[in-house]
């Protein structure tokens, strides 16, 4: 608790807050230029996020996959790897869960649902590990392989859905069995039928697991050593290559879980997609916002997801067109991500404070 209070008073918290404010001001200027009323728009934005239990529930639904893909990118980054492939891991994880959810039947919920989650998570993990293995064994840059694997993942998922799971006459798979559902109907009822599901709990647990693995276990110690300085890790007798694969595997599990719960918790089916849904790419921004810290990622996802969901309110309540809303969201993200600019803006205040301290 004391730690939390100290953090709120700390420099990085103030900077983040000011960054969000600057982003909103910048967005307001753009809206004024475009001839829209920013105050009405922002009120509509916040109303959309917090306005009703339904909206709060749907905001949480929007945030959940972003936490997981954000953790995926952040985990790899802590190990010195740039995981652009959360998107592909997301899709493969999703497909794994859909497959188990649709094809198996007659199992009780307590077996079927967790099984679908585990299979999906492992599928995502292996998809990530593939990029890690290519880097470890062949030295192929993981940025390139993960980007490629995103496309392969997209088409492979579509192929699997279209060939084995397709409901005739539809562009989507059969519905998953009820026993594989990870929805929370009783909670959803309390939130005006918002699509709440177990994935949110899992995402928050994942942030804790992220922290424990990296900062409490031997494995995490090795992963971080490899991430900061692979040479020193090698000199200290760690198996750098194997750790790269482990790191990408773990990152893939996080991203895979995001996809798993989109199927088991939100849609209950998987469509044949023309393009990736983009949660993996948003995960890069979220991880950046959260400064690769698991709890920062949760906050970053809340910001990103809240803005994304709330933006419909700006469109609906203030008639701001979607294009301008994207600029507004973009400028908030921009300021949070480029903290250097914010610090520069804050410099005069800090200087004055510094002088006062010196006088005292």
């Amino acid at each position, binding site marked *: 608790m004391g730690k939390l209070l100290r953090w709120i008073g700390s420099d990085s918290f103030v900077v983040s807050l000011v960054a969000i404010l600057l982003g909103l001001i910048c967005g307001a200027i753009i809206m004024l230029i475009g001839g829209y009323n920013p105050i009405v728009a922002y009120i509509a934005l916040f109303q959309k996020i917090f306005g*009703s239990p*339904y*909206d709060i529930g*749907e905001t949480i*639904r*929007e945030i959940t996959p972003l936490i997981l893909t954000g953790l995926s990118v952040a985990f790899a980054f802590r190990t010195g790897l740039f995981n652009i492939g959360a998107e592909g891991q997301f899709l493969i994880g999703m497909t794994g869960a859909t497959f188990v959810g649709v094809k198996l039947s007659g199992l009780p919920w307590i077996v079927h649902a967790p099984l679908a989650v585990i299979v999906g998570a492992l599928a995502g993990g292996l998809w990530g590990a593939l990029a890690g293995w290519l880097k470890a064994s062949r030295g192929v840059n993981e940025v390139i392989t993960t980007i490629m694997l995103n496309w392969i993942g997209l088409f492979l998922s579509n192929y699997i859905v*279209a060939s084995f799971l397709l409901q005739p*006459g*539809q*562009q*989507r798979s059969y519905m998953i069995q009820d026993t594989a559902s990870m929805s929370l109907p009783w909670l959803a009822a309390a939130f005006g*039928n918002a*699509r709440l599901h177990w994935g949110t709990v899992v995402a928050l647990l994942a942030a804790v697991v992220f922290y424990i693995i990296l900062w409490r276990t031997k494995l995490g110690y090795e992963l971080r050593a490899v991430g900061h300085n692979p040479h020193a890790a090698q000199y200290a007798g760690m198996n750098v290559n194997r750790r790269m694969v482990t790191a990408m595997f773990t990152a893939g599990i996080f991203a895979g879980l995001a996809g798993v719960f*989109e199927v088991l918790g*939100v*849609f209950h*089916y998987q*469509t*044949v997609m*023309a*393009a990736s*849904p*983009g949660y993996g790419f948003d995960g890069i921004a979220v991880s950046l916002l959260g400064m690769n810290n698991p709890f920062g990622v949760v906050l970053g996802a809340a910001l990103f997801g809240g803005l*994304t*969901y709330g933006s*419909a*309110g700006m*469109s*609906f309540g203030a*008639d701001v067109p*979607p294009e301008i809303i994207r600029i507004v969201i973009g400028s908030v993200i921009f300021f949070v991500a480029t903290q250097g600019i914010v610090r520069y803006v804050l410099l005069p205040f800090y200087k004055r404070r510094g002088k006062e301290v010196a006088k005292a």
Partner: protein
Amino acid sequence: MVTDIGGVNDKSFNQSAWEGLKKLEGNGVTVKYLQSKSDADYIPNMNTFVKDNYDLVWGIGFLMGDQLKTVATQNPNSKFAIIDNVVDAKNVESVTFAENEGSFLAGVVAGLMTKTNKIGFVGGVDIPVIKRFDLGFEAGVKAVNPNATITKNYTGAFDKPDLGKAAAATMYNAGVDIIFHASGATGNGVFNEAKDRVKAGKKVWVIGVDKDQSLEYGDDVTLTSMVKRVDEAVIRVTKDVINGQFKGGTTQVLGLKEDGVGLPDTSKKNVPADILAKVDDYKKKIISGEIKVPTAQ
């Protein structure tokens, strides 16, 4: 009105629907749209309209069917309408098009105008809607020109112009001189390939889809288009609601008779009058029920 990811400037479906809706604005009627950023947005967007007590909520496109059904079931007192899909609920009016009928007429044009007796069809994804285009077109061709052969290619995507271009190139190389596409943006590739060939001095044609595509790609490659009047459909159903005649639980199939599908007036630039006269004959026969055009479910 809730659009899919394309938004109201997609030069296709969503845009056409929004243009229709906008014509009804005024006289106490307010219209508004929400663009979906992903599949997950369909439901919250529809709910936004429901919660603000809109009299009618439109879902544009086949893909929104499941979600529209969920929202309609949860809100039995609100009214919904959907294009291109059939949702079985008391408070939903579904609108589909008899694409097979319009495509039949396109087939008549192609069958009469081909010089090589080889005709192509490029489809998007193999789903019932596209299948209707395919079967209607084939029937039209065979009715006037039993000797013509039709090459078919389903590219598997509505948004991949590169695939469309490749498919068209293969067909034209094999001697096909007219291609009918029913593949959304994938068809842009078909048009591009045809344009390249026309520039190189060959005479090849494309038959467009959904909108009058000669307006976008020019008359030198666009033979005609199989137009789906989404705007007309939106106006029709919305007017019913305004006049208190909402037909929930029913499905409206808009065919030639209802002017929901057809060939645009610009066709006469490239299609000789005698052929257009034949097209008119067939149109009358279809409307009267004398000809039954095959369809798909």
